[in-house]
């Protein structure tokens, strides 16, 4: 495994993924804000949460990139389309499995069964993240596919 390439392209992919999601927010496609969601696990302060979440998000990017790299090595294949395919699979997993169970994982997220409490006040994302905007799945899919494209296109399996 090429550790330097993993670090460089994992970081680059995360930068692009974050930029796509931030741009989607800016253009009114989604309210999905991953750094904010991650950060509020640790603090209720909006500003601090964004900063902590941003750092965690990059750490996550490297961890996920490691999984992508492991897949490239397992299949002996690292191409842009294979990276994109893994990205789409990951996005589908996030949208259909992870987001709906977020209220159970996140200590500050409210859920539809019990309503908000003093601690749990964050709006849950719902199935496919649709509570954060009807176009949320599209931006999540595109962002993850491009994350995979970058890793697949530039990571070299030796």
């Amino acid at each position, binding site marked *: 495994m090429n550790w330097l390439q993993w670090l460089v392209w994992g970081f680059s992919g995360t930068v692009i993924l974050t930029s796509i999601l931030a741009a989607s927010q800016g253009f*009114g496609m989604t*309210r999905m804000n991953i750094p*904010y969601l991650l950060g509020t696990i640790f603090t209720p302060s909006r500003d601090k949460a964004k900063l902590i979440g941003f750092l965690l998000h990059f750490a996550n990017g490297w961890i996920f990139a490691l999984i992508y790299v492991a897949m490239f090595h397992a299949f002996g294949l690292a191409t842009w389309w294979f990276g994109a395919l893994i990205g789409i699979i990951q996005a589908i997993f996030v949208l259909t499995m992870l987001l709906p169970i977020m209220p159970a994982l996140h200590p*500050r997220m409210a*859920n539809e069964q019990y309503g908000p409490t003093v601690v749990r*006040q*964050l*709006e849950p994302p719902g199935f496919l993240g649709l509570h954060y*905007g009807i176009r949320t799945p599209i931006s999540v899919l595109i962002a993850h596919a491009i994350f995979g494209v970058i890793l697949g296109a530039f990571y070299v399996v030796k």
Partner: protein
Amino acid sequence: MSTEPPKIQDYAIIGDGRSAALISNRGSIDWLCWPRFDSPSIFGAILDPEVGGSWSIRPERERKVSRRYLDNTNVLETTFACDSLKIVLTDFMSVTSEQNKQNRLWPEHELVRQVRCEGGDADVIVEFNPRLGYGRIAPKIDRVGKLGWRFGLGTHVYTLRADGDLDCFKQSSSMGTLAKLRLKAGKSIAFSLNFSEEGPAVLPPLGNSAAERLQLTSDWWRVWIAQSNYCGPYERHVVRSALVLKLLSYAPSGAIVAAPTTSLPERVGGDLNWDYRFAWLRDAAFTVHTLFGLGYKDDAKAFVNWLLHATNLTRPQLRVTYDVFGERPLRECELQHFSGHRGSRPVRIGNAASEQSQLDIYGEVVEAVCYFFGKEEPDHEMQKMLRQYGEYVCDHWTEPDNGMWEERDKLRHYTHSRLMCWVTLDRLIEMHQCGRIRGFSIDKFRKQRAAIRREIEEHAWSKKLGAYAQACGDDVVDASILLLAYHRFEDASSDRMQQSHARIRQRLVPRLGLVHRNEQSKNRREGAFALCSFWETDFLAHCGRADEAHEVYEAVLTFANDVGLFAEEIDPETGDALGNFPQAFTHLGVINAALTLRDIEEGGNSMRRTS
């Protein structure tokens, strides 16, 4: 309940330093724009009761209404009373300190309405009828389990929650959602409307948590008011006006919008309907005087920083208005689908005045900045900016413009514009003499200042009127002439100023305390311009007629509504409020005139004269 739509003075305001809502004395929110003052409306019934949208909470049976703000806050309390039964409606937008926001999740915007029943059981009607995009979109409202009712547009999401059961909400074809609640004596129910666009919404719980947010909100307003050092006459009115100004300031940038509304008419049924949800440079000097005069140095600093940021891109040319982030306001257009407030069409959004030429604003900005820096020396960049304004005025003061009243018919050589060009150069020369600014030809500025003085004294003085006229060479009476004394161009007790005031009294004062801005506005059957009454107060105080000044001031205060708010104008016949509401310029006038009266009473000169 009356079927007549509420009048302008029937409204009160609540806000969170980013947006504001107007609530009628019938318990209906008829105006709310989120997330900013100039965003499209969610509730716009004030401009069209049929399609604008509203959120009403009221008793089923008609009751006597009284309103007040909780002491030193912008938390509104409306009481509907009948015999021993009382229904108390408390409305506020949640605000708290940045420090408190570090310890808890806090919604981007939240409006809380708490209704409490005292002295017996009562039926309360709740009608929730949001219309997004200035009434164009009737949103589909979805139930989201225990998270309440949700609707949205794009990534804007609105959530309505209550600490009672919202299942009793019935979808009605024309009126959105409707509920009838039975409230037992001593019980209360709270509603929270929440807005989010930045990220996942924060949905604060109700019950005790809503009571805590009410306390935090009240505390925040009270802490802010406690920073004021005002001690003098008419304190109640000064405090209310300061609270209005704070409501109209956009906290993230420091800008202060002229009013939170658009197209409330200057003549009911007429077409003098403008969008005031922007910041006017004209208010700058007045605003800085006021904030400093009350001791709000941080707010004054925030405002001046906004001023410098906003003007940075266009200087040395200045725009008349900017949005809260210093950008060009929306292009003016008409909302044809709105019938207008009490039939006053058209309803406009955006403001074409931003493209006008108004030379007086240079004087306003220079005076505000000079006042702000006081005895300190402005930094290099600031000095450069001030020099540029001085040079611009030297090159352009002879040109006609649209003037401070933003007349759209033709350009004129307005006396007030000349005066403010004189102020620009006068204040810069003063600063130069004190060694606070360098790098320009003092002789050139002195020469131009003298030329402007000559122009005003020779051409703005009308022999026919025996008074200063609105513009050089004409014979129109205009209340802005009183500002010749305010800005120290001429002494208030001079013969010319006394004669000019007498002419204003004769032609522009329909009754004590009310002053039309000029003869054109009087002929157009507009109301009296409330700010002009405060100019007259100031003028009388400065020419040694303090008793008359108090009389005028007290007379105009009687035209405030039941919770102390002023619009832009006042109908001289009915006393009704006219124009956008509440109006920052008018409330600045309330405070400035009170400061002058206080200073004169204390035997000193008024604040601005010693600056």
